[in-house]
């Protein structure tokens, strides 16, 4: 049996960021239902909190929507105060789903055909 491959999350899922005040929500939606269990196993709130550690989230919650093969992360305190208070350029944190999508995920060889995009993309 071959070892799982390491690939970026964006080959397994897509998502979008929303914001309310200093709170960001990031959806993660599996490209294929076969990939959903991998996301549930590997994309834990702890892993996500680590990816955003430099923004010092005060809380990271994960909500599962298995019928949509989707999950929703809610990150508190990661927007430097939110759209009106922040000093950064992307005050809404619109790009943050792509920070999450850079996470590395282990994918068994058998599921590789379900990945999106060009290999190594």
């Amino acid at each position, binding site marked *: 049996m071959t070892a799982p491959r390491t690939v970026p999350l964006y080959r397994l899922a897509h998502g979008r960021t929303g914001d309310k005040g200093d709170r960001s929500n990031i*959806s993660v*939606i599996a490209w294929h239902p076969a990939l959903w269990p991998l996301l549930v196993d590997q994309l834990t709130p702890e892993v996500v909190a680590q990816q955003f550690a430099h923004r010092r989230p005060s809380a990271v919650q994960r909500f599962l929507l298995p019928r*949509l093969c989707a999950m*929703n992360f809610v990150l508190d305190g990661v927007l430097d105060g939110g*759209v009106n208070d922040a000093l950064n350029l992307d005050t809404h944190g619109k790009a943050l789903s792509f920070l999450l999508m850079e996470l590395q995920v282990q994918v068994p060889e058998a599921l590789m055909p379900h990945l999106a995009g060009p290999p190594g993309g």
Partner: protein
Amino acid sequence: MSPAPRPALLIGCAAGFSGDRTDAAGPVVSTLIARLAAGPAGQRAFLIFETLAERTLALAQLRRRVDPEAGYEPLLDAMLRPVLRRCLQHGIRIVGNFGAANPEAAARHVLRLARELGLQAPRVAVVHGDDARGTAAMALLEGEIGGRVNTQAVVSANAYIGAEPIAAALDAGADVVVCGRVADPSLAVGPAMSHFGWAANDWQRLGRATMVGHLLECGTQVTGGYFADPGYKDVPGLANLGYPIAEIDAEGRCTIGKADGTGGYVTEQTVKEQLLYEVHDPAAYLTPDVTADISDATVRQVGPDRVALEGVTGHARTSHYKVNVCHEGGWLAEGEISYAGPRAEARARLAAEVLRQRLPRLQLRADLIGVSSIFGDDGGQLLSAQAAGDGRDVRLRVAAAHANRAEAEKLLHEVTALYTCGPAGGGGVRTTITSRLNTVSCLLPRDVVPTGFSFVTEAA
């Protein structure tokens, strides 16, 4: 035998924020007219406009301070002029929150526009009650926010009110309903409540209609806008995106589609992304109308550019309204300078260090555009953890906020001085200073925020 259910209601959306494309409504209205002509007897259609983001209303309030007849959506004329005649001729009623800080003036503008176009005056209703600066509400608000905000500096305080006054205005015969701050999904819930005669505590149907409104409220974000990602999500016709049209049945279930002959697409993926957009707990999406629940929702492609949303439900609404309070927030100073060629990144990092040493009393945020400028934090933790690389085309951007304008302006002077006093080869300095509005949110009991509607009859 019970009467046959009313035919599905059509709701098109032609704006997702203040500043959205003003040529959006034309194709939506053409499609609505075509579908009404081909549809069953008794079918009705609405056109909604959502133009208020979290901060838009405070900016509108500032405009109204300068001009008492201003403070509504600046693009209102450009949005409505191309379609008002056809909407009125075909019985397509219009609901929008383009009233912003001055719904009465917006209503007068609509009447003036109708007169200019030679149309019979439409019945224009204004929804009120969202402005929470009245005495009773303000006394409570001061208790809620007093510790966080100088209440003397409050620019606007608006409750997110719900669909009931919209439905009441439509029941009374309004052709156009002008709102200020209402919850975005309520723009669709109001028409559905009025059309189907739903009760204000019909939680299941209101929950479903709320999620329809949620899918529509950001305009093209459900039809391929904000979605394209080459190689992964290739959206056709991105330059000519079609705005969404929903069909809601008497149970509140919906199919989401888009205007005919336009670009973009509606797929399970676009609908899922928008369904979760700005949602926190999927089992409890809170609006003034209902607590909507999408934890068992499904989406299903039922045709080209047609996706059905099912499995949404709803629970009792909360006893409070969310209120956004905007207040004066001092000044934001931003300065930028570019470095290019060998060691450009090192020179840009050195320039940032010079600014820090020159301005020890200002909390500076520094970004290296081209190296790290978006994912980073105000404290610069990410940037300093990243070893200096060999970025060859780098723009240093520095920002600081201060209550005092003169203090904030010091940053602009120091960035400008980098021309001659900073590292080699710096160029293209730009500096800006802008006044800031900050917001805090709190909750007010419903009974201190009375809502209603009235008709406006005099054109501006």
